[in-house]
């Protein structure tokens, strides 16, 4: 099951440049929350802070409190590897391990976490591929085909399956469909909608129609600050803040 996320006073920097200013935001468990905003507004930085990916960039750092369920992400005993297992991430460009088979791609995270039981691994791989709506398309070629041999849309679903295999509670998606054609995009969107039954999903997107289609809550970021955060219907029909309205109606700047 998904868990909620509590963010309090989150600040982030790249070197001396502050890219997030004191973000307070509560993300509901088992819902899809979209993060929108112009380039450079801090939306990707924000989600990368949720699973401590931000600090993997040289000179990047974050401060503040992020609680994912009971886990204190920035607490003193927190282990970044465990954080990233529980909070999976899918990126803009599908990045399967190109020479590995489909099966090994999905199992990679499990193996990395020391998982050895073959039977259970088979089950987890199948379950993950089913959850990612890819099973039917690849089940006959799990070991024969490589990750790179799949289409872009299939590769992205493979990456989602890989993220799901380690049984996270939260799934972060940074522009997961922006490199895909409309049919693959709608498959991913349908999938996101299904996934919220099991996970809490946070999706960063430039495509506002996509946010409107998949997310129940939408957050608008601007220049490192959270400007407005509300139900998606409210944001896209009657936003409270003029800056939100200017952005979503394209009158920005």
């Amino acid at each position: 099951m998904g868990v909620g996320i509590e963010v309090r006073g989150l600040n982030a920097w790249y070197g001396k440049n502050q890219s997030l200013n004191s973000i307070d935001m509560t993300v509901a468990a088992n819902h899809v929350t979209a993060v929108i905003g112009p380039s450079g507004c801090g939306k990707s930085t924000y989600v990368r802070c949720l699973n401590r990916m931000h600090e993997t960039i040289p000179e990047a750092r974050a401060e503040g409190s992020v609680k994912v369920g009971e886990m204190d992400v920035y607490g003193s005993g927190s282990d970044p590897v465990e954080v990233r297992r529980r909070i999976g991430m899918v990126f803009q460009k599908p990045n399967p391990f190109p020479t590995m088979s489909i099966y090994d791609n999905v199992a990679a995270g499990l193996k990395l976490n020391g998982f050895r039981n073959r039977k259970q691994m088979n089950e987890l791989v199948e379950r993950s591929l089913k959850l990612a709506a890819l099973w039917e398309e690849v089940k006959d070629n799990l070991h024969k085909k490589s990750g790179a041999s799949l289409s872009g849309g299939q590769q992205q679903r493979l990456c989602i399956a890989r993220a799901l295999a380690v049984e996270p509670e939260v799934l972060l998606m940074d522009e997961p469909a922006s490199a895909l054609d409309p049919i693959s995009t709608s498959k991913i969107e349908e999938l996101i909608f299904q996934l919220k039954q099991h996970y809490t999903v946070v999706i960063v997107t430039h495509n506002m129609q996509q946010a409107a289609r998949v997310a129940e809550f939408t957050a608008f970021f601007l220049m490192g600050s959270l400007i407005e955060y509300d139900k998606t219907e409210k944001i896209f029909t009657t936003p409270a803040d003029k800056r939100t309205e200017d952005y979503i109606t394209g009158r920005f700047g």
Partner: protein
Amino acid sequence: MRSRFQQGLDELKEKLLRMGGLAEQAIDRATEAYRTRDSKYCQMVLTGENAINEAEREIDELSLDLLAMQQPMAVDLRFILAVLKINANLERVGDQAVNIAQRVLDLISEPEVQLPVDVPRMADSVSTMVQRALEAFLDGKAEVAEAVLQMDGIVDRMKDEAFIVLVQKMHNEPTVTRAALNVLLISRNLERIADHATNIAEDVIFWVRGADVRHGGAHYRQ
């Protein structure tokens, strides 16, 4: 891209205002026909209906195009929805003007009778409501639209009074029944136009404020 969209919105507004002008003209001509008992004005209303219907079609088409091609959001989305609803209301205003013109044609086919109803005064109030509602739309002024909502009660009362005095009149002087029925129907047509003006005003408030004020409430999205 956006400026093309803005052009589309401006065009939509202009088309709707032009249609509003046609609807206002239809009310004024129908009223003039009643005042002067001149069938020429009735004919103008009847032939003018085509232009209103044509305008309705064009506005629907352009709205649909903008929704499909530009996927508007927030205030733009509310604007186009409001335009679509105002469009339908204006078309109905045109229909009501046609109904009045037909009643007037029937009225003037018989000798004139004096009836205790001031139709031109009622028509004047109704016409003012439509004008103000369109003004509110032109300037995006919710306060002007609110004033229109206040006027609806006045027109309702005028129609109720007309009903009482005309029934009384028919009862006392059965020979005027046909004329009295025509005037009763005209007052009802006018009252319906006032309702359409009210709807238009509500749509303007929805566009500008994002609030649903229909059916006597002020419903904001939570």
